[in-house]
C-alpha cells in the first residue's frame, strides 16, 4: 500500500470490515454443514480477539506522545468510532436493552443521559483540553491549578471512578469468555484480561485507538444485524426504528389485557436471583419527572467528567477536529442506543403475544418447559417459569428472565441461526474489551505520568517512563480481574456509580478551570476533596439504610457530591487570593483555538 498508515485508514478498515463479513458468511456455511454451536462460538471470539492482538502488536511504540496520545494524529471520524467503542461498554451492549425491557421509561433516562452528556463534552471541555495539550486529565488539573496536591487529588478521583467501572468490564469479558469458550468464570476472567492487555500494552493509546476502531466495527454489526433480521422475520417492519409503532401499541394493549399482577414475597423467593418479571409499562411514563431528570443529569455530568472518554479527544490533530470528533462519537453511539429500545420491543412482543408462534404467555407451563431455547436459557440461569396460581397456564407474572437474555437469547427465540449468537458474543466481547482497555489505560497513564513522572521522578527518561506505564497497566489489570473474579456487584450498578464518583470530584474543577478565571488552587483542592468525600459518604449512608433526601438515590449520589464540590470550590476560591498573572494568561490562551498548545509536544 502506498502512503502512510493514516492516509490509508479508510482502505485498511474497509478491507477489515469486508473480511469480517466474509467470516460471518463462512461461519454460517459451516453451520449448515454441521459445525456445532460451541465450535462456532469459540471461532467467533478467538478470531476477533486474535485480530485485535495483531493490531495491538503492530501499533507498538517507544515514544511518549504515541504512547499517551497516539501521536495526536487520529482523524475525526476514526476517533469518533474509537470513542464510541471506548464508551459503549459491556453494560451498553448486553444489559441496556434488558433494562429498557424491564423498566421502560424510568430506565430510558440513561439513554438520554449517556448521549446528552456529549453536548457538555463538546461545548464545555474537549476543545479546550485539546488546546491545553495535556496527556491525561490530571495533567490539566495539575498545570491549570498548579501544585502536586491538586494533581494528586485528580488522580485519586480518576482512579476511584475508573476502577469502579473497570471491574464491571472485566467481569463482562469473563462472562462472555466463559460462555463462548466453555471454561469456568474464575479462569475466563483472566482470559479476558490477557486479551485486554494484548491490545494496550505495547502500543498504549496508539494500540488502543486502532483496536477500538476495529472493535466498534464488530460490535455495531453484531448489534444491528440481529435487530434488523428479527424485525423482518417477525414481519414487524423492514426498518425497525421507523416502523415499530404498531408493535409498541400492541404491547400496551396486551399489558392492559394481562394486567400487572403483583407476586407475593413468598412466591418470589422461588425465583432465581437476578431474574425479573415484567412489572412496568413498556411505553407509558412510569417515573416522576425528578426521578427521570435527576438520573439523566447525573449521567450527563458524569459523562463529561470520565477521563477515559476525555482523553480520546487529546488524540485529534487539532482543536477544530476535537469538536467535530465529539459529534461523530455521538453519531456512532446513537446507532446502537437508538436500536436498543427497538430490540427490547421486538423481544418483549415475541415473548408475550399469544398470537405469535414464539409467544409463550397463555401456553401451558409444561409446553413452555419443553421448548428447546427455554431449557437452554433456564440452565444458564437466565429464564424461569413457575405456576404460582396453579392453573397450569403461564401468566405474565409467572415468567422471569435475566436482563442479559434480551440481547443474548432473542436471536435464538426468534429462530435465527446460531451463527448470530456467535456474532453477538463477539460483539459483547468487543464492547467490554474496548471499554476496559480505555479505563485501564486512563488509570495507568495517570499514575505513570502524573504521579511517577510529574511528582516522584521528573528526570526519568522516556524509556523508563514507558516501562513504568506498562508495569502499572498489568498491575491494575490484575487487580481489576481479581476483584471481578469475586463477583461482588452486578454489571450495571457499578457502571452508574462510576459516573457519580467522576462527577462528584471532577466535573466542576474541570469546567471552572476553563470557564472561570478566578478559580484557584485552593478552590480546586476543596472542590475535588469535598466533592468526592461527600458523594461517597452519601452513597455509604444510603447503602447502610439511610433514607436520603430530595429523592437522591444511590444511583444519583453524584448530584449531591457535585453540588458540594461546586459550593466549596466557589467559596474557597473567593476566600483565597486570585490565581497569579501567569495562570490567568494561560487560561486566556486556552480559550484561543489557534496557536501552540500550553504544554509541549513531548512533556
Amino acid at each position, binding site marked *: 500500500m502506498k502512503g502512510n498508515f493514516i492516509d490509508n485508514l479508510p482502505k485498511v478498515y474497509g478491507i477489515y470490515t469486508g473480511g469480517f463479513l466474509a467470516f460471518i458468511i463462512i461461519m454460517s456455511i459451516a453451520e449448515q454443514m454441521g459445525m456445532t454451536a460451541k465450535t462456532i462460538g469459540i471461532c467467533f471470539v478467538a478470531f476477533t480477539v486474535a485480530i485485535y492482538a495483531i493490531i495491538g502488536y503492530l501499533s507498538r511504540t517507544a515514544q511518549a506522545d504515541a504512547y499517551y496520545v497516539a501521536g495526536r494524529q487520529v482523524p475525526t471520524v476514526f476517533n469518533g468510532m474509537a470513542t464510541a467503542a471506548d464508551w459503549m461498554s459491556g453494560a451498553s451492549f448486553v444489559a441496556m436493552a434488558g433494562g429498557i425491557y424491564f423498566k421502560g*421509561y424510568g430506565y430510558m433516562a440513561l*439513554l438520554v443521559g449517556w448521549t*446528552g452528556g456529549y*453536548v457538555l463534552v463538546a*461545548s464545555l471541555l474537549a476543545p479546550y483540553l485539546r488546546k491545553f495539550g495535556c496527556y491525561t486529565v490530571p495533567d490539566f488539573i495539575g498545570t491549570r491549578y498548579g501544585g502536586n496536591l491538586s494533581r494528586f487529588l485528580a488522580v485519586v478521583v480518576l482512579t476511584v471512578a475508573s476502577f469502579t467501572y473497570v471491574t464491571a468490564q472485566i467481569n463482562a469479558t469473563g462472562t462472555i469468555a466463559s460462555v463462548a469458550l466453555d471454561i469456568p468464570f474464575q479462569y475466563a476472567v483472566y482470559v479476558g484480561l490477557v486479551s485486554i492487555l494484548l491490545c494496550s500494552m505495547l502500543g498504549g493509546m496508539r494500540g488502543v485507538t486502532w483496536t477500538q476502531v476495529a472493535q466498534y466495527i464488530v460490535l455495531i454489526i453484531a448489534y444491528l444485524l440481529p435487530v434488523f433480521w428479527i424485525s423482518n422475520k417477525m414481519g414487524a417492519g423492514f426498518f425497525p426504528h421507523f416502523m415499530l*409503532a404498531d408493535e409498541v401499541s400492541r404491547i400496551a394493549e396486551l399489558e392492559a389485557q394481562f394486567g400487572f399482577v403483583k407476586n407475593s414475597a413468598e412466591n418470589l423467593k422461588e425465583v432465581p436471583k437476578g431474574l425479573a418479571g415484567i412489572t412496568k409499562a413498556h411505553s*407509558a411514563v412510569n*417515573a416522576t419527572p425528578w426521578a427521570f431528570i435527576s438520573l439523566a443529569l447525573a449521567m450527563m455530568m458524569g459523562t463529561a467528567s470520565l477521563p477515559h472518554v476525555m482523553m480520546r479527544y487529546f488524540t485529534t490533530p487539532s482543536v477544530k477536529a476535537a469538536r467535530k470528533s465529539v459529534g461523530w462519537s455521538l453519531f456512532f453511539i446513537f446507532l446502537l*442506543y437508538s436500536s436498543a429500545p427497538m430490540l427490547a420491543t421486538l423481544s418483549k412482543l415475541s415473548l408475550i403475544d399469544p398470537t405469535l408462534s414464539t409467544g409463550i404467555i397463555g401456553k401451558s407451563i409444561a409446553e413452555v418447559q419443553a421448548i428447546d431455547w427455554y431449557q437452554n436459557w433456564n440452565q444458564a440461569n437466565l429464564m424461569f417459569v413457575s405456576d404460582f396460581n396453579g392453573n397450569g397456564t403461564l401468566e405474565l407474572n409467572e415468567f422471569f428472565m435475566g436482563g442479559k437474555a434480551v440481547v443474548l437469547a432473542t436471536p435464538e427465540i426468534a429462530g435465527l441461526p446460531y451463527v448470530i449468537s456467535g456474532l453477538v458474543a463477539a460483539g459483547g466481547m468487543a464492547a467490554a474489551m474496548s471499554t476496559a482497555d480505555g479505563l485501564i489505560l486512563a488509570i495507568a497513564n495517570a499514575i505513570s505520568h502524573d504521579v511517577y513522572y510529574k511528582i516522584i521522578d521528573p528526570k526519568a527518561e522516556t524509556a523508563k517512563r514507558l516501562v513504568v506505564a506498562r508495569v502499572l497497566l498489568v498491575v491494575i489489570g490484575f487487580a481489576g480481574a481479581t476483584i471481578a473474579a469475586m463477583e461482588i456487584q452486578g454489571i450495571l450498578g457499578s457502571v452508574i456509580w462510576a459516573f457519580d464518583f467522576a462527577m462528584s470530584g471532577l466535573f466542576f474543577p474541570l469546567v471552572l478551570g476553563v470557564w472561570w478565571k478566578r478559580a484557584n488552587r485552593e478552590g480546586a483542592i476543596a472542590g475535588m476533596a469535598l466533592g468526592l468525600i461527600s458523594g461517597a459518604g452519601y452513597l455509604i449512608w444510603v447503602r447502610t439504610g439511610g433514607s436520603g433526601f430530595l429523592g437522591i438515590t444511590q444511583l444519583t449520589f453524584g448530584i449531591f457530591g457535585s453540588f458540594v464540590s461546586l459550593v466549596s470550590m466557589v467559596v474557597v476560591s473567593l476566600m483565597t487570593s486570585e490565581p497569579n498573572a501567569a495562570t490567568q494568561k494561560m487560561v486566556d490562551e486556552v480559550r484561543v*483555538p489557534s496557536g501552540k498548545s500550553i504544554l509541549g509536544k513531548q512533556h
Partner: protein
Amino acid sequence: MSKQAQHWEKSRGLLLVTLAIWFVFSIGIFLFGAEMNEVTGPFGYPLTYWFTCQGSLGAFVILIFWFANRQEKIDEEFGFSERGDD
C-alpha cells in the same frame, strides 16, 4: 475591547445558546413527560417515548455538529482558525 476578549464573548454567547437547546431536549420535555406522552409523535410512537428512544438522542447529534460549525465560523471571523486538516 481586544480581539481576544471579543472572540471569547461571542464564544460564550454560543455556549449559552447551545446549553439552552441542550436543556430543552435533556430536561425540559421530561418535566411534562406524562402529558406529552398522550400525543402521537413521529412514526406513530407516543411522543415522550419517541424522544427517549430517538428524538432527544438525534437532537444532541445535530446540536453538536451545529455548535462545532458555528464555533469554527467565530474562530475564522477573528483569525483564530487553525490551518490544515480535520
